[in-house]
């Protein structure tokens, strides 16, 4: 009957909820924010069979949030679970005393998720959930959360993360966020660009920056608190850093020429940038505290799109020094430039998988631009998509999925593909284009 809950988790959580409430205040969004809707375009019929039972509601009227629906959708989207249809359920237990394992073995469920939501003091809700191994007939996890209504979706994603980790042994990445740029026509010759941040499933979109000139290249700091990006609001590209917690914005780079392609060092203290202040684009590293600027490349070609290795020792970048854009790697001090890609006529915009062994990139053969991965140890290139205008790939923080931008019927949409290429989804806006996605890191400070 006792919930699995350590003291460390409990005290940490209070701090996190406080911070989360802060975020909600800051991003109090206008009511009619367009939401990205997700459609699974390629699924799998394998995976761990799991039954997610609708959570019990112990209050009046309708429950404030359909927690089980969110958990079910998260698990299904991952491609690692087969969520079983509710019409097959013999019962709908909401408490561990009501669980009859045999009923779940019959429908071939290997795991079972149940839970309940109960009104608590001060307009808050208590959410309980339990995860069972149907064959071993044991409880694998049990947690209780007491939160306000705005945080219930976050709780659902956290529950999905717990289930994912207990059953796959790897951390889930449902309770993360994505940043992206939207563009909507505002008139015959004008447009509105927004840098937005939403939950990983497209819900709770918040506008972080709005402009009438292009925005691009959003990049998360590893603590998930800051986003660097490029804005043309002054009719030329400049790099800014937006703090998501206190709302502060800093102008970081406004040198002559291009100020672009910001990439955070893993320690969050430096930004790699592409600057053309000396005549053509070169890779620089800017120390944010001291403003010390160090130039790392020296080549008449285009050098751009730097990306740090997770250990901070290397930078990957795009260069056309051999004639066409290809990927190169150098040490973070700018030494030992080594070419990484040789296949295809255009390889660019790399970013590292969290384990540092694989890159995701845009790779083109005969004018079709697709998302690929390349293994750094073997050099093996794997193309994951079959569309032709794909760009801006980034890994989920657990390395399982890659989020990127593509085009469907003339409109910019986001898409994700599992790192093994088996599962695909599209994220669409009802109107306008969406592009330049960036998957947030794990949000260790705000959530767990």
């Amino acid at each position, binding site marked *: 009957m006792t919930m699995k809950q350590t003291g460390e988790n409990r005290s940490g959580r209070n701090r996190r909820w406080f911070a989360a409430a802060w975020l909600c205040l800051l991003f109090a969004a206008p009511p009619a924010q367009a939401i990205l809707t997700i459609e699974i375009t390629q699924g799998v019929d394998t995976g761990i069979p799991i039954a997610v039972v609708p959570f019990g509601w112990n209050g009046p009227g309708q429950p404030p949030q359909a927690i089980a629906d969110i958990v079910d959708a998260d698990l299904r989207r991952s491609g690692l679970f087969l969520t079983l249809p509710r019409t097959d359920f013999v019962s709908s237990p909401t408490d561990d005393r009501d669980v009859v394992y045999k009923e779940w073995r019959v429908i071939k469920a290997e795991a079972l998720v149940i839970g309940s939501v109960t009104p608590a003091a001060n307009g808050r809700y208590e959410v309980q959930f339990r995860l069972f191994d149907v064959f071993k007939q044991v409880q694998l996890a049990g947690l209780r959360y007491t939160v306000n209504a705005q945080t219930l979706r976050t709780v659902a994603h956290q529950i999905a993360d717990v289930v994912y980790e207990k059953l796959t042994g790897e951390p889930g990445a449902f309770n993360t966020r994505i940043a992206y740029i939207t563009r909507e026509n505002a008139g015959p010759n004008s447009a509105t660009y927004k840098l937005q941040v939403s939950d990983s499933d497209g819900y709770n979109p918040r506008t972080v920056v709005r402009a009438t000139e*292009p925005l*691009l*290249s959003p990049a998360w700091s590893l603590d998930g608190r800051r986003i660097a990006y490029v804005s*043309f609001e002054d*009719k*030329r*590209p400049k790099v800014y850093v937006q703090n998501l917690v206190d709302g502060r914005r800093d102008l970081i780079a406004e040198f002559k*020429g*291009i100020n*672009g*392609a910001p990439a955070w060092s893993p320690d969050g203290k430096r930004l790699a940038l*592409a600057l*053309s202040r000396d005549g*053509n*684009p070169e890779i620089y590293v800017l120390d944010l505290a001291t403003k010390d600027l160090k130039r790392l490349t020296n080549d008449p070609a*285009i050098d*751009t*799109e730097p990306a740090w290795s997770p250990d901070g020792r290397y930078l990957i970048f*795009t260069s*056309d020094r051999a004639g*066409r*854009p290809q990927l190169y790697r150098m040490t973070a001090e700018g030494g030992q430039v080594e070419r990484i890609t040789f296949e295809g006529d*255009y390889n*660019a*915009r790399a970013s590292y998988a969290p384990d540092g062994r694989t890159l995701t990139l*845009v790779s*083109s053969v005969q*004018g079709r*631009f697709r998302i690929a991965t390349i293994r750094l140890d073997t050099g093996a290139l794997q193309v994951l998509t079959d569309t032709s*205008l794909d*760009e*801006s790939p980034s890994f989920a923080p657990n390395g399982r999925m890659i989020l990127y931008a593509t*085009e469907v019927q*003339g409109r910019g949409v986001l898409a994700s593909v599992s790192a093994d290429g088996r599962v695909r989804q599209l994220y669409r806006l009802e109107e306008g284009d969406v592009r*330049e996605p960036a998957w947030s890191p794990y949000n260790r400070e705000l959530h767990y």
Partner: protein
Amino acid sequence: MQTKLGLAVVVVAGSLWLAGCATGTSTTPPVEDKTTPSQTPTQPLPSPSGPKAGELSGTPADAALIAKRRVYFAFDSSQLDDENRKIVEAHARNLSSNPNLKVHLEGNCDERGTREYNIALGERRAQTVERAMRVLGVPANRITTVSYGEEKPVAPGHDESAWAQNRRVEILYR
């Protein structure tokens, strides 16, 4: 504006005289034709911005070229072909003979490839045009450049005809 117009009159008068000298039988005033901007397959769209009084140039041939405010490039290329180079050179002569004029060059790309690489490529295109102008004597302080990469397409489509129109440098007088 007042001084520019005044200057324009002088320039027009001067070039009329020059044209007269060169051909001996000039009856056509060397002003550009605003009503029928010439179009070729590599010049798919006329510039939306109208000509300014100060931009009148020395020869009728240049006037037709100066009416074109966009030059175009091949995919992933920043080379000017002969036809587009002639347009840039006409603008350079125009700038040389009109010392009050400044020009802003905006480099652009088609949507293919990555956005930051395209910003770099668009800059390289703008710099190609800038260099061609400077070779013909236009001082650096009268030329500014910016690259919008693939962020400001003029043709919304997703095919080669749209892409060809978007791979361009805009020549904007200031």
